[in-house]
Each structure stands twice: as C-alpha cells, then as structure tokens.
C-alpha cells in the first residue's frame, strides 16, 4: 500500500472545498453550464442520460479495505447500492445528485480518495499493472513511478487545459497487463545494456475514432529524467496539438501528422532546455516515494501446501476456479487471486455495496487488507496464502465472486453504452449479458480457452473494441442498433488493432455471430492449445467471414 501523508490529505480536502464552492456557484446560477462543465469534468462529474455520474480515481489500481468500505458507503448513501469498475482503474457511480456531490467527495476524502482529473482535458489517472509489486515477472514495482507521476500531474498549472484528455500507463513486467500501447504515453520499464533500469517511452497510442498503436520515441529514458521528459512531451502537445476539431485533438493525431520521428525531435529539443531543471528526480525523492509503499509481512510458507492439493482433488468446482483465477505470486506460498466481476447475466464490472463490504472483509482476513483493480474490470486480492485458498473460495462463492471465467470468453469488457451514456449509439451491457449466457458452460468456455471480447457502444471506444480478440462496436443505422464485429485485436505486448469482419449486424444477431465465430475457431485451430488470437493471426479473417456471412 502507499501511505498518503498530510500533504496529500490536505490537498484532497482543499480540492473538495474548492469543488463545493464551484457547485454552489453553479446551483445559484453564477456559473453557466458551459463554464461549469469544464470544472465538473476536471472533478470526474459527467451528466449522463438519467443522472450525474461520478468517476473516482483508484490510483494505480490499489485500494485498501477501508477505502473499499467507503465505496460501499457511497453506493448506499448517495447512489443506488452499486458501483461500476472501469477499464482505467476508476470506479463510477451512476446516480449521484449534483447537490450531494460535495458531501460524497468529502466522505471519500476521509479515506484519501478523490475524483481529481478523472475526466477533462488533463492528465488522467495514471494506470498500471494490477499485479504490480506481486507479479513474478516484473523488473520492479511500477507503482512507485505511477505515484511520482500522480503527484506531478495533479493540478498541474500548465497542463490542465490540454487540447484533449491525456492518459499515461506504466508496465514493468514481461507481460503487459496495463495496455500501455494504447495510451497517450505508454511507459515500459526496461533494462539497458549497462543493466540500468529505465523507461521505454511510447507516444500516440489510443483508440476512439482513429485508433493507433503507440510509437516508441525514446528506447531508454533514465529514471531521473522521467518528469522532465513527460513535461517536454506535454508541452509540445499543449502548444501544437490540434484544437480545431475535437476528433483530431488527441496527441496520437499530432504524432501521426508530424511523424513519430519529427515529434520525437521536437520533444528532444524541448527536453534539452528542462532536463536539468528542478524536474530532475533526486534519488532521495524517489527513495522517499518508494519508502511509502509498504509490503505485507509475509509468512515463510511453502508453495503448493498439501491442503491445497487435497482440496483440488476433492472438489472439481474449486479446481476449476484454482486453475482459472489464481496466479503465481513472487512470494513462495502465496497467490494472486482474481475476483471475477463477470458473473453470468450481470453487467460487466459492477459490484454491489454488499459485495464491496464482503470484499473488504475478505481482504482483511486473507490479503493484508489490500485489493487491486485491473483494466479488465475485475478485482484482485494480491497476497493470499495458498493454504487459505479453499476457505477463501467458499466465501467468494457465497458472494458471487468466484465465477471461474477470468480471461475466458465470458470475461467481457464493456462500456456502459446506451443504457447510461449520453454519447452512446447502441447498448453494450445487454449484449455482454446475452454472451455470458451463451457461454455459461464452464467446460465449453475452457475448451475455447483464452478469448477477450470487448464491446463499445460508440466510436469513442471506451470498451476498447479495437483491441478485443473479438471486438464489438455499436453503431446506429436509421434509428436502429447495429454492431460491427472485428477480429484479431489485442492490447498486450503484441498490441494490434482488429480487422473488420464484414457488414454490421442487428442487435438480435450479435450473439449468434459471435457463437459462429467461436465455433469456426474451434474447428479451424491447429491444436487445442492454439489460442483464438493465434488462429486469427495464422489464417486471417476470411475463413471466419465466409462462415458468418454465408449463413446470413
């Protein structure tokens, strides 16, 4: 966990007081909606179809049990008893009154949580690997750098009114769980030939109307230079990013129009003037941030304790969950447990207040009071002793949190879509719900193997459909919902954009088409081990296209 100190706490309280004043001025009419909109967005408040939505930051996806209980309180006291975990390590509440927003934020500030910069044309919540600090394959804990960047970007006086939103993600592991290639700045921690650890810097990744995979403009950036280099990127973007067209205002368009090389050269020129300024990171500052991350006092335990093997033998349901939702921890005798928020028939990523309280209690009992939020909209208990897995599983089951579908076809990422969102053209959640019904049989899902479905209700791509193994994009045709299907996208270290399968299909046909695609894959794969994504890569989309459209 990161321990916020008085400075962080003071700033959060002062921000609540400022926002209370802003809401007061809006309600009195002193501020017009036009003026208030930028102010409320910078504090995570959207006006959606039915109500205001509040998006709360969960910096680098780390939550304490105390914070989770506060989220449950907010769900009960100010909302309708549930919340929605997003793809960017935030939680959204859908029904909070503007009048009660300041009180909600004051309650959250009590546990050092806030909604600063969860929207607006500023640097958004810095995201990272939900397994940071416990993953067996990481170089070092990337949250230290996410925290350095969190502080640096919070209420930044120069970069709070950028051409458009700005998203930064960091990954320090061999396997990229933070989708860094689809961020405005993607940082990968790497080791150079001298053995030093630094950052590979990608810029200009992003989805939306014009999707791009990020381009590397700096193969190795020393740690001391992280802030000055990010400032140089932001300064070039702030001055030269397009402001004439909202759809061309993201940094990816600037990088694309200038070319990555020229953009990189502009950044270098700017960076040369500030590299040795007060932004250069002093080792003492880095050490101070790093020291504030505390790690559990692990017991000395053996891997694969006998109790675990016994439970696996005795209970097939437990075995299925163990194989699916439990991952290797870097500490012997411990495990990383993913809690699926994708039960059959439910909206992806939602948790009720009761579930939040239960998760907080389970975190205290089994995971040193710590919870993580990942970009797949699932939660994680990051430090569970392997010997306690059978007991934890039973309790998770009781709360509907042990669906063994992590990484499988029913572990769907979906945006809120037309059921909530004022920008959406089509619904996402009911499509996801129907798909989870179609693939509810665990044996079938296991046979299919790893397969990511991503659903967006409009071109803004909040459901990351471009990088879904199967991507589903809702569009509108003559007042009716239609869906475009793409195949072959991926968001990991081999990130690529999916290819359009063919003409859009009607709402009622989406699940049938996906079933056809999956059935075709099962027939066409070389071996049962060949993943869907690899089959698409090997044979292209034509065989799928024939299969889907021949019948229609």
């Amino acid at each position, binding site marked *: 966990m990161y321990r916020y100190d008085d400075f962080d706490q003071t700033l959060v309280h002062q921000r609540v007081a400022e926002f209370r004043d802003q809401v007061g001025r*809006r*309600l009195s*009419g002193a501020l*017009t*909606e036009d003026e208030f909109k930028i102010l409320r967005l910078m504090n995570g408040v959207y*006006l*959606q*179809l*039915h*109500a*205001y939505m509040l998006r709360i930051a969960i910096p680098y996806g780390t939550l304490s049990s105390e914070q989770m209980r506060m989220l449950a309180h907010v769900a009960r006291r100010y909302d*309708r*008893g*549930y919340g929605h975990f997003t793809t960017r390590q935030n939680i959204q509440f859908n029904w909070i*009154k*503007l*009048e009660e927003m300041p009180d909600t934020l004051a309650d959250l500030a009590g546990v050092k949580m806030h909604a600063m910069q969860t929207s607006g044309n500023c640097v958004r919540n810095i995201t990272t690997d939900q397994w940071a600090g416990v993953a067996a394959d990481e170089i070092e804990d990337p949250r230290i750098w996410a925290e350095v960047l969190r502080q640096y970007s919070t209420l930044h006086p120069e970069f709070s009114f950028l051409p458009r939103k700005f998203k930064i993600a960091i990954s320090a592991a061999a396997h990229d769980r933070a989708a860094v290639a689809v961020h405005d700045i993607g940082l990968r921690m790497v080791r150079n030939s001298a053995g030093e650890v630094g950052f590979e810097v990608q810029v200009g990744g992003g989805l939306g109307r014009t999707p791009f995979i990020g381009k590397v403009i700096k193969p190795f950036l020393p740690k001391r230079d992280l802030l000055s280099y990010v400032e140089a990127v932001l300064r070039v973007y702030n001055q030269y990013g397009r402001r004439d067209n909202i759809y061309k205002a993201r940094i990816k368009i600037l990088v694309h129009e200038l070319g990555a090389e020229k953009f990189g050269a502009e950044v270098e020129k700017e960076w040369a003037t500030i590299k040795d300024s007060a932004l250069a990171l002093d080792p003492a500052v880095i050490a101070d941030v790093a020291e504030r991350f505390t790690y559990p006092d692990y017991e000395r335990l053996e891997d694969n304790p006998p109790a675990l093997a016994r439970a696996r033998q005795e209970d097939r349901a437990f075995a299925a969950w163990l194989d699916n939702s439990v991952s290797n921890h870097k500490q012997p005798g411990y495990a990383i447990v993913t809690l699926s928020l994708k039960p059959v028939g*439910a*909206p992806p990523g*939602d*948790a*009720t*207040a*009761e579930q939040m309280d239960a998760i907080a209690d389970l975190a205290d009992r089994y995971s040193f009071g710590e919870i993580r939020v990942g970009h797949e909209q699932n939660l994680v208990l990051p430090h569970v002793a392997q010997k306690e897995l059978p007991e934890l599983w039973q309790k998770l089951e009781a709360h509907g949190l042990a669906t063994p579908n992590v990484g499988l076809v029913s572990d769907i990422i979906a945006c809120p879509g*037309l*059921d*909530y969102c*004022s*920008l*959406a*053209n*089509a*619904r996402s*959640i*009911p499509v996801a*719900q129907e798909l989870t019904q179609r693939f509810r049989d665990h044996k079938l899902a296991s046979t299919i193997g790893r397969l990511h479905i991503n659903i967006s209700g*409009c071109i803004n791509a909040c459901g990351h459909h471009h990088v879904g193994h199967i991507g589903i994009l809702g569009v*509108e045709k003559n*007042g009716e*919902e239609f869906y475009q299907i793409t195949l072959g996208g991926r968001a990991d270290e081999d990130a690529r954009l999916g290819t359009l399968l063919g003409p859009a299909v009607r709402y009622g046909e989406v699940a049938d088409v996906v079933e056809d695609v999956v059935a075709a894959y099962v027939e066409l794969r070389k071996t049962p081990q060949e993943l869907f994504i690899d089959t698409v890569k090997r044979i292209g989309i034509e065989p799928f296209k024939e299969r889907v459209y021949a019948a229609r």
Partner: protein
Amino acid sequence: MTSPHEQKKRKVSGSVVVTANRLGDGAVVYRTIDDDWTTDLASAAVLAAPAAAVLLQRAEADGVRAVGPYIAPVEFGADNRVLPGNLRERIRLAGPTFTLPGAA
C-alpha cells in the same frame, strides 16, 4: 439515439417535446406549455416539430433549472398516451434496459 451534439443537428419531424436534465440531480425533465419543467412526460408540451423551436429557445434561456435542452421525438400509444419516440428517449424515461445490480 445519438449523441447530444448530433441530437441537436438532427432534424426531428412529427410530434416532439423539449427535454433536458434537471440541474440539481440530473433527472430527466420535459418542458411544459407554461415554461416549467416536469418529470412526467404526460404533462409535457407536445408540439409539431416546427413549432418546438420557440419552446426550445425559451428552455435554453433557463440555464439554472435544467441543463442541455433539445428537441426529442414522441409517439402516441393506443390509448393516445405520449410515449418516447426512439430507444434513447425510452431509456432516458424508463432507465437501463436490464435489472440493476442489487435490485433483483
């Protein structure tokens, strides 16, 4: 069934209402004939599309009670009841199309 930005550009024909969200809590509201707002669609002013422009203008001038007014289509049910004219408006009136978590 399209974004608010495009919603405004869109030509709506037939019978319409002027709708917005209430400032204080975001609730869906409809403009009445006496320049008030109501959450009850049956009490809304229903006009032919060309005539709604004036009602919209007056609604836009009311920047404190409601936010983002626009013209939305309506239909009439069998009993001549006023109903929302498209999916987006049906969802705005009735809420999400699935059971909300915790409500089941």
